[in-house]
């Protein structure tokens, strides 16, 4: 089959091929060309533009100047959610071993008065009623209710010396 003859015809339809096979192929081509396109009736075309307009209106987006409040609200909500729910980052724990001597002396100066004050505090001034109120009577010490006359002083001394 002469391919070139068909190509020539496609370039210039006045160049009819001479071979039988080529003519048969072109007959098929003509048959396809002659198939009329099915044409809808006038009612269809009368409504075509109106239906298209409806479709266009449905697909139209709001202009940016109308859409920006929605975008802003969305972005703000997203930022707020991020701030609230962002994963906490582990912070480096302050270690006294890492501090310089100057740093340690500064801390010492700041805390020394407080420590001294605590040490000097008279334990006798502790209000045990407040402690009982705070910790309740479930304390192991509360139900002991010791009678000092029953305490063997010598035995206690010996135990004290032994255990320290």
């Amino acid at each position: 089959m002469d391919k070139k003859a068909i190509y020539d015809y496609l370039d210039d339809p006045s160049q009819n091929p001479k071979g039988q096979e080529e003519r048969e192929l072109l007959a098929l081509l003509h048959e396809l060309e002659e198939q009329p396109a099915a044409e809808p009736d006038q009612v269809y075309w009368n409504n075509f533009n109106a239906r298209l307009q409806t479709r266009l209106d449905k697909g139209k987006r709001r202009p940016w100047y109308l859409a920006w409040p929605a975008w802003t609200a969305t972005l703000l909500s997203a930022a707020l959610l991020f701030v609230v729910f962002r994963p906490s980052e582990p912070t480096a724990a302050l270690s006294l071993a890492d501090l310089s001597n100057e740093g340690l002396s500064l801390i010492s100066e700041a805390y020394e008065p407080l420590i001294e004050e605590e040490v000097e505090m008279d334990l006798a001034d502790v209000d045990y009623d407040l402690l009982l109120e705070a910790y309740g009577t479930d304390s192991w010490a509360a139900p002991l209710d010791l009678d000092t006359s029953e305490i063997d002083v010598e035995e206690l001394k010996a135990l004290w010396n032994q255990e320290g």
Partner: protein
Amino acid sequence: MDTDQAKKVRDPASNLEDMDLISRFVTGDERAFSELVNKYRKQVYAVARRFTKNHEEADDLAQEAFVKAYKNLKSFRGESGFKTWLLRITTNLSINYTKSGRVSKDSGETPNEGEARNTAPLDGMILNEQKGELRRAITRLPPKQQQTLLLKTYQNMTCEEVANIMNCSPGTVKANVFNALKRLKQILNPGM
């Protein structure tokens, strides 16, 4: 073949008219787009119909093609004619549609009802049967050959016009048409 429409395709005056309508549309004149729709809606529908063979699907594709054109017309650079650009959109939509497998079977509608009415009933039936056979044979062609043949035989398009729409070279169009015709002949006459 509709010679008036075919003439319009290659008519530079028609292209100038299109460019004028596009300029008006770009500057906000929506009526200009309606005029473009009026001018090309039948051709868009006809191309879609060639691919789908069903009125509802062709209608949906034609409408979608114009929606796409409307959305993208402001970025139309005029490298090809508006008609070529529009038919390329239609062809691509039709190809994607057929590729998706959603295309329904031939509705059985007779495209040439007028012709059939003018012939004797038996002749009309034979004619319709032959055309139905040809349509079914086309669906058995490889997609590229099928698409090229359907466009080439639409309104006697030139190979250059088909190549522009298919985004390939005229040589590829000729090769596809030749191979499609050869394959069609084998399908229709399996013994030969």
